[in-house]
């Protein structure tokens, strides 16, 4: 048998149910893979004791024959999720030492289904970043390298630790969150699969807030089938999140037939942008051909406001962040600055926040404060919200013309070197999300599927965007793409 940590969720589920493997053995294999992967800096809080307890409980449940699909499956959890009694600090110094007294709804759903938590995963601070370089824990490192070149590459961000852990087989799957591309971009950069569901599918309760109107949880896995299985468990209607939607959750895995004959796939012309490497364009064309060969009808579509998605995002997301992150004041949890003689409460707030937040988070809070301030609210914030309405309308019009899913590149490049963007303008880093951010603004489901390798041997991904609430159909199209692309490469182990 192959090493157990290298199994997919679906394979492990079948072996657990047939009694050929125990969750304990599977969990131990993952824990030892985690121990041996310090160089990736993916797991930042390890929870082997919890994992082994959960594995034991899962084995009992499997024996009793009452085992949901995720029962006994070892997962990694992004540090943004509050996990009871386990450090949850959004990769920020301002939440140092914070141990939630409660469990996020999504992790509770996973645990109710018997999932095993190996630990907490690295990420960009408060999910603000596209390279995992803003983390208080230091960079997470991509297990993929450019051939024999040992330059450390980014696993993407913000869910960089999740992507690195799944790609390196440290866990069978991981949770991510996606505000502007934070699941799909790291998945594309690491050869893994990730879906951001429709806004409202997963409860945001207990997930540390960045931009509440954009944030969604989702799975990051080795295959499309695994994403379907994990998403099934993560979704629920939750009275504790007023934006959580009260709709039945379909059986995502049952919808995976791989048959997309008669489906219409839209190719948006506005996603052909200047300066994009030829290889990205080539893989997009290949993906289009694959879907056509699988029996889909391919049509050109127009999403005319695409160009304005990133600037609208960089008003709306910082505005919401400045409001959400106002709670970190050194009073109720986390870090409090040491005060000088005579310092009052204002100095306490200002020093605490200057010490606790990293540079990128401070910048976004202040940009958000500015665009919401008197005199600028209409010019920036309201205008951005109007543009958001237009971006959503573009998609609605495409879907009204009979388009079932939209195919785009997932990222404008393959993984880049850690530190390579250090001196770049922040706007340059923001361009990483150019293909993904529209989906958050429109609240739609989007999935990233590995489609091939570039000349340097690095994975490239394609994104499929679906109609609202039709994740089942979207995942089925993703399966057809995955099958046609036949991506089976894994990074050569160097860590």
């Amino acid at each position, binding site marked *: 048998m192959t090493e157990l940590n290298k199994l997919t969720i679906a394979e492990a589920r079948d072996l657990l149910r047939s009694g050929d493997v125990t969750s304990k053995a599977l969990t131990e294999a993952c824990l030892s893979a985690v121990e041996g992967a310090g160089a990736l800096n993916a797991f930042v809080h390890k929870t082997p004791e919890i994992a082994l307890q959960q594995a034991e409980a899962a084995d009992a449940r499997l024996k009793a024959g009452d085992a949901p699909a995720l029962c006994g499956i070892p997962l990694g959890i992004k540090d943004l999720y509050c996990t009871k009694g386990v450090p949850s600090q959004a990769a920020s110094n301002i939440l140092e030492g914070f141990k939630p007294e409660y469990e996020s709804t999504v992790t509770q759903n996973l645990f109710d289904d018997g999932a095993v938590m190996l630990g907490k995963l690295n990420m960009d601070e408060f999910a603000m970043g596209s390279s995992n370089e803003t983390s208080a824990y230091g960079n997470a490192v991509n297990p993929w390298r450019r051939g024999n070149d040992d330059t450390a590459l980014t696993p993407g961000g913000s869910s960089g630790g999740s992507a690195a852990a799944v790609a390196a087989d440290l866990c069978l799957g991981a949770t991510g969150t996606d505000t502007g591309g934070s699941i799909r971009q790291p998945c594309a950069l690491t050869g893994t699969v990730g879906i951001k569901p429709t806004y409202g599918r997963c409860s945001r309760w207990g997930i540390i807030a960045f931009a509440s109107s954009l944030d969604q949880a989702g799975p990051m896995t080795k295959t499309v089938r695994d994403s379907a299985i994990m998403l099934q468990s993560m979704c629920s209607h939750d009275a504790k999140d007023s934006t959580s939607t009260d709709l039945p959750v379909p059986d995502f895995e049952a919808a995976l037939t791989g048959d997309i004959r008669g489906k219409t796939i839209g190719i948006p012309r506005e996603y052909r942008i200047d300066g994009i490497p030829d290889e990205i364009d080539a893989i997009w064309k290949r993906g289009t051909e694959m879907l056509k060969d699988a029996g889909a009808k391919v049509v050109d579509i127009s999403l005319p406001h695409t160009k304005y998605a990133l600037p609208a995002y960089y008003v709306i997301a910082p505005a919401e962040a400045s409001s959400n992150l106002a709670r970190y004041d050194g009073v109720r*949890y986390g870090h409090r600055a040491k005060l000088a003689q005579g310092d*009052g409460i204002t100095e306490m707030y200002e020093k605490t926040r200057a010490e606790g937040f990293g540079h990128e988070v401070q910048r976004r809070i202040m940009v958000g404060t500015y665009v919401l301030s008197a005199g600028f609210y209409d010019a920036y914030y309201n205008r951005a919200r109007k543009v958001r309405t237009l971006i959503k309308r573009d998609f609605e019009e495409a879907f009204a013309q009979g388009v079932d899913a939209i195919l785009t590149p997932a990222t404008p490049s393959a993984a880049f070197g850690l530190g390579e963007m250090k001196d770049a303008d922040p706007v340059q880093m923001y361009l990483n999300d150019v293909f993904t951010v529209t989906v958050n603004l429109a609240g739609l489901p989007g999935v990233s599927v590995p489609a091939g390798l570039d000349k340097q041997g690095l994975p490239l991904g394609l994104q499929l965007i679906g109609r609202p609430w039709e994740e089942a159909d979207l995942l089925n199209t993703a399966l057809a793409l995955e099958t046609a692309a036949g991506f089976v490469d894994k990074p050569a182990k160097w860590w």
Partner: protein
Amino acid sequence: MSIDTDTAARVAKLARIKVEPDQLPALAEEFNNILGFIEQLNEVDVEGVEPMTSVTPQRLKRREDVVTEGDQQDKILANAPDAREGFFAVPKVVE
């Protein structure tokens, strides 16, 4: 719209983040870069367009205005940097 160091200082104050005076010019420049990028939104014709309030067409749900999970003072204070006698402790607020 160009942001000067006075405006940068005012924004930092509003955000309750201490920024040293020698850092203000660099901060102002960063703001200008980002706002320059955002200025593109002025090209869009938004006449008659409603600003989005909810990305999904549903009304915000309401719940009964009652205590749901009360009586857990210890848990609420467990993570406080300074908690005394059942309260969060802060520097003197009122002179």
